[in-house]
C-alpha cells in the first residue's frame, strides 16, 4: 500500500515538474520573440519621427540642406531595405546621419531653445534608447533561454519540444556605434 502511494507521489511530482518546465519554456520563448519584435517596432518609430525632425530643423537652418537630405535619404533607404542584413546597415547609416544633424544643430541656439524641437529631441532619444534596450533585452532573453534549454534535467523537456538556441544579435561595425545613442545636450 505504502509502496504504491510512494510511486504515485513520485509520478505526480514528475508530471507536475514536466508541465511546469514546459510552461516555463513557452513563457521564455515568448519573451525572446517579443523582445525581437520590439526591435522592429522601435526602428519603425524612429522612421516616423524623422520627417517631423527634419521639418523643424528646416525652419531654423534651411541652408543646411546637405545634412538634411542625407538624413531623409538614409531614412528612405532603411525603410525600404529588402534584407535584414541591408536593413542593419541602412539603420547604421541613418544613425550616422542623425548624429551629424545633431552636431549641426549645436550652431543654432534659437533652435535649441525651441520647445517643439526639445520635444522632438526627447522623442528621438527615447526611441534611440528603446532600440538599444530592445536589442539588449533580446540578447539577455535569448541568453537565459539558451542556457536554460541546456541544463539537466530541463534539457529533456527542451529536446522533446525541439527547442533550438536563438542566435545573439551580432553587432556589426556600424551597429556597434549605434548602440550609443547620439549625445543630446540641452
Amino acid at each position, binding site marked *: 500500500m505504502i509502496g504504491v502511494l510512494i510511486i504515485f507521489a513520485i509520478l505526480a511530482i514528475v508530471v507536475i515538474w514536466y508541465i511546469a518546465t514546459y510552461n516555463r519554456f513557452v513563457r521564455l520563448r515568448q*519573451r525572446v520573440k*517579443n*523582445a525581437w519584435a*520590439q526591435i522592429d517596432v*522601435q526602428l519603425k518609430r524612429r522612421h516616423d519621427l524623422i520627417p517631423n525632425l527634419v521639418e523643424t530643423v528646416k525652419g531654423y537652418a534651411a541652408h543646411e540642406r546637405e545634412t538634411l537630405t542625407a538624413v531623409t535619404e538614409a531614412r528612405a533607404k532603411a525603410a525600404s531595405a529588402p534584407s535584414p542584413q541591408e536593413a542593419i546597415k541602412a539603420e547604421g547609416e541613418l544613425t550616422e546621419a542623425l548624429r551629424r544633424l545633431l552636431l549641426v544643430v549645436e550652431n543654432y541656439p534659437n533652435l535649441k531653445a525651441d520647445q517643439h524641437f*526639445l*520635444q522632438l529631441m*526627447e*522623442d528621438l*532619444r*527615447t526611441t534611440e*534608447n*528603446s532600440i538599444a*534596450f*530592445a536589442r*539588449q*533585452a533580446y540578447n*539577455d*532573453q535569448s541568453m537565459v533561454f539558451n542556457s536554460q534549454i541546456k541544463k539537466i534535467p530541463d534539457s529533456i523537456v527542451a529536446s522533446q519540444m525541439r527547442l533550438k538556441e536563438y542566435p545573439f544579435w551580432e553587432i556589426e561595425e556600424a551597429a556597434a556605434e549605434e548602440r550609443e545613442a547620439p549625445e543630446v545636450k540641452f
Partner: protein
Amino acid sequence: MKKTFWEIQREKKRAITLLFLFFFPFFTFSLAVLFEILRFSSVSLFFKDAKFSEFLIVSSVISLIVFFISVKGSSEGKIYRYLEMLNAQVPDLKDMKHQQVANVVREMAIAAAVPKPRVYVIPVLGKNAFSAFNIIAITEGAVSALDRDELQAVVAHEMAHYLRGDSYYKGVLSSFAMTITFFLTISLFFAGGDENSERRGFGGGFIGIAVVAYIFLVELFTKFLNALISRRMEDLADAMAVQFTRNPLSLASALFKVSRDRVRGISLLTNPAVAPLFIVNPARKQIDESSGVFGDIFATHPPINKRINTLLKLAGVSRKELVERTSPVRNNREWWVEKQDENLGPFTLEELLEKTWIGEGVKIRGKEGEVKLSQILSKFRPIEGQCPRCGGPLFNTYYDFVPIIKCGRCGGILVREDRIMRILARGENQITEAEEKVSESSLEKERKTFYIHGASPEAVDASQPLKCPFCGGEMWRKFFNFINYVPVDYCPKCKYYFFDSGEIEMIIAGVKRTKYLYR
C-alpha cells in the same frame, strides 16, 4: 573578487527561494505549537482530544488558505486608494519632465521584456519611488532632482520588482505576520481568562506567561524573516536594474541623491503598510537606532551606503568620484557624513561640528577621504574639559573673529566675560533676518514664562547647576540681563559664560529690539 550583476542576481534569487521555503514550515509549525498551548488553556473544551499531528494538519490548511487569500486579494484596491489619497496622477504629457518619466518607463519595460506598467507621479516633495502590482509611482521630488539616466535607473529598479512580482510576495509575508498576530492575540485572550478551571494542573498564570513569551518570540522572528527577505529583494532589484540599464553608476548616484533627501520622514509616504515597497525606506529613523544592531536586523531595506558601494564596485568608480559628480564643492562645503541610510552634507567644518549627533560611530568623509572625528577636532586645538551641558568635546573657534570655546556636540559656547560685548556688537550684523525672527519668537516665549512667574532672580531654575569645565566648580544660573530674561550659566571664578546653542542669538535679537525701543 568582483562579481557581475548576473552573479549577484543568482545569489539573491537563491537566498530568497530558500527563505521562502523556510517560511512556510515555520508558519505552519508555529501555529501548531500555538494550538498545543491552547489545549492546556481554558479553551481546551474544543481541543481536548486532539493530537499534535492533527494540529499540524489544521494549521497547514490554514496556512494555505491564508496564502491563497493574500495572493488573490492582494490589496490592489488599497494601493489605488493610497495613490488617490496622495493625489497621484498619470504623467502630464505636456510637461517635458513628466514625458521623460513616461518614456523612461516604456524604455525600461522594453529592456525588461515585460508589458508596460501603469505610471503615476505623486505630488510630494520627498524623493522616492515605489512599485506595487502593475503600478510604478515616482514622487515629484525625485522627478525634479534626478536627471534622465538616474530616473531610468530608479524606474529600472521598480521594473525589477514589477517583473518579479515582489509586491505580491511582500503581501503574502505581511498577511502571514498578521495572521500569526491575530491568532496569538486571541489565544492570549483565552489563556488568561477562566481562572476557575484547573485543567491538567496548569494555572492560568503559567499559560498566560507562556503565551506572552511565545507571542513575543514568534512576532519577533516573523518580523526578522520578513526583513531578511525584503532586504534580499531590494538587492536583487538593484542587480536587475543594472542588467536593464547596464549603467550601475546612474543607480548609485540616484540612490545617493535620494539618500540626501531633506524632507524624508516628514512627507506623507511613511505609511508603514507601504513603506517596504519604496526604493528607500521613506521613514527617517532616529539616527541612533538605525546604526545599531537592531536597526540592521529589522530593516526592510539594506543600508543605502552598502547598496551604493556595491553599485560603485560594479561601475568601477570610487566614492569620491561619485560625490564630485553629483555635487561639486562650493563655499568650503566639503564634509560629508555617511550613515546607513543617509548621506548628509556637504557641510562646512563648523556646520559639521555643530551637529549634535556626530559621534565616533558615524563615518565622516572630507576631501582626502575618510577621517575620524578626533582628527578633525585636533585641528581645532581641543581643550581639556568637557561641555558643561552635554559632556561633548570642546574646541577653540571664533564668533565673527571673537575667540570663543565651542562644544562639538550640542553647539553650546563658552565666552569670557570681557568678550561678550564684542559678540553682541558684531553679532548684530551677523544674524540674518530669518534667524532673528526665530530668535525673537523664542525670546518672546521665555519672556512670557518669566513674566508670569515674576521676573525675579529666583524665577530661574537653579536646582541643577552646571559644572564649570575649567575649575570644576558649580556655575551660577542667572538671567543674562533683566531686559530679555534669557537664563544663562556663569562661572564666577573663571569669569566664563556658557550659552546653550541659540541663546546668544536670542540675546543679540533682544539687544537689537531694545535698541529700536529706545531709539
